[in-house]
């Protein structure tokens, strides 16, 4: 009897389990047109191994140190084809697998309170960028996986469900955020149990393990333990969601995830929750119309709509409202993991941006030949590499001088476009204490 590696999409649910996250991921994979999966048994997942070593290995119940890793593909192939490829008797399947790879899900040998397996490190492909006349923008980086010697890659942000033994929502949110910025900031990746331990160096009333949650202060301490800093944006007093949308667009442009601190309200009870921003969708006019989040209680790239008719993205409409019966879900704070050299704070550059919009609109309204509704002003954060790389492919004045100019590692850019054509970038020093213009980059 040949070994069984390959399964059809009818088996996805049995591998992923019946937890909320397992069901969400099954549906997500069907939407991505997943046809086959390959199951790697006895897979050693680094994050789980550390959690196992620090927590589960000392439990009375015998728990395996191995996980299952399930790889998904959008192309049909048989178990026989796969075995032939492993034996070196099929030259074509390797390329097919690489081309149609949708990512992987680690399933832990830990069960939740309903007896369903916990979802571990998960890296799945995102939906396509173009959606009619709208665009999806995702944070993602190349995630590598080796399946029996085959090098596979998927662009994704790692996700995992919470595990009340070692990690509640805040720990998982930090884990996702730190995984996302580890390459950008050159910081080591840490497992959920390590995050909980680092955060708990600052005392709180809660037990450390099992994990019942972290305070905002503890989350900040965790980031500082890794030589990073945290910027906390208070949007509780904002009448509209413009600060939130601006922060999402600006930081996502630099590949930096935002951690949302949300208040969930059910009748008279309320509780705080933490999730991570992993993308957003824009309409034709480049306005943000929905968010994508990694929610450890729902799943990866979960779609968040604004509560209608106010169209305000501080108030969310997703599974917490539609399925789990909460009355209200509201963003109060945003925590941004910051590299210490990013000294120009969001609140300062955002205030500069708001006043620039006000003054520019006044100038345009004074001129009868100009339509101020066609003026679009964006605030974006760049690394020097990504900004120069973008300019390299644009038609700008004094291109040689601009490209060869010494600039700081991080740049804030206020970008001006008219009728969807960019004509000016005001470039600010991201490492300065106060907003300082370094360059006005003029487009043809």
């Amino acid at each position, binding site marked *: 009897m040949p070994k069984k590696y390959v399964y059809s999409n009818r088996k996805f649910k049995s591998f992923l389990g019946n937890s909320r996250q397992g069901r969400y991921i099954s549906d997500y994979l069907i939407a991505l047109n997943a046809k086959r999966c390959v199951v790697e048994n006895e897979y050693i997942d680094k994050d789980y191994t550390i959690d196992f070593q620090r927590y589960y290995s000392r439990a009375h119940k015998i728990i395996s140190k191995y996980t299952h890793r399930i790889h998904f593909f959008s192309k049909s192939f048989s178990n026989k084809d796969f075995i032939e490829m492993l034996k070196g008797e099929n030259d074509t399947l390797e390329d097919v697998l690489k081309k149609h790879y949708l990512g992987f899900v680690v399933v832990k040998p830990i069960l939740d309170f309903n007896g369903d397996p916990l979802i571990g490190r998960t890296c799945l492909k995102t939906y396509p960028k173009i959606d009619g006349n709208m665009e999806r923008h995702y944070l993602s980086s190349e995630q590598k996986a080796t399946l029996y010697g085959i090098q596979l890659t998927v662009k994704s942000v790692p996700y995992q469900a919470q595990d009340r033994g070692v990690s509640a929502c805040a720990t998982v949110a930090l884990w996702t955020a730190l995984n996302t910025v580890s390459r950008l900031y050159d910081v080591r990746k840490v497992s959920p149990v390590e995050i909980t331990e680092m955060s708990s160096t600052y005392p709180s009333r809660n037990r450390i393990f099992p994990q019942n949650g972290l305070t905002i*202060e503890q989350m900040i301490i965790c980031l500082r333990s890794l030589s990073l800093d945290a910027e906390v944006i208070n949007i509780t007093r904002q009448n509209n969601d413009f600060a939130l949308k601006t922060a999402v667009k600006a930081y996502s442009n630099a590949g930096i995830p935002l951690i949302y601190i949300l208040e969930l309200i059910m009748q008279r009870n309320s509780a705080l929750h933490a999730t991570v921003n992993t993308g957003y969708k824009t309409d034709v006019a480049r306005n943000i119309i929905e968010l994508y989040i990694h929610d450890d209680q729902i799943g990866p790239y979960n779609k968040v709509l604004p509560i209608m008719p106010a169209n305000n993205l501080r108030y969310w409409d997703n599974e917490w409202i539609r399925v789990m019966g909460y009355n209200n879900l509201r963003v109060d704070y945003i925590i941004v993991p910051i590299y210490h050299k990013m000294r120009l*704070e969001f609140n300062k550059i*955002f205030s500069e941006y*708001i006043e*620039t919009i006000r003054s520019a609109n006044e*100038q345009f309204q004074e001129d009868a030949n100009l339509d101020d509704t066609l003026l679009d002003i964006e605030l974006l954060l760049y690394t020097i590499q990504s900004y120069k790389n973008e300019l390299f492919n644009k038609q700008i004045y004094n291109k040689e001088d601009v490209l060869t100019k010494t600039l700081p590692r991080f740049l804030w850019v206020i970008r001006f476009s008219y009728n969807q054509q960019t004509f000016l970038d005001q470039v600010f020093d991201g490492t300065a204490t106060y907003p300082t213009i370094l360059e006005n980059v003029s487009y043809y």
Partner: protein
Amino acid sequence: MSLNEAKRMEYHTLLRQKILRATENMRENQEAQKRKEELSAELSKLRESDLRKTCTI
């Protein structure tokens, strides 16, 4: 260079002048500076009590 390109460049120059004038006006405007400071303070305010709230969900 086509006529359209030349016109666009001329137009963009006009737009840039408008923006540079706008930002100059903004920096000289005391009211604008005050509003900036207020908004900046509001966005960075973190109450002690909120710092100690726990994300429990």
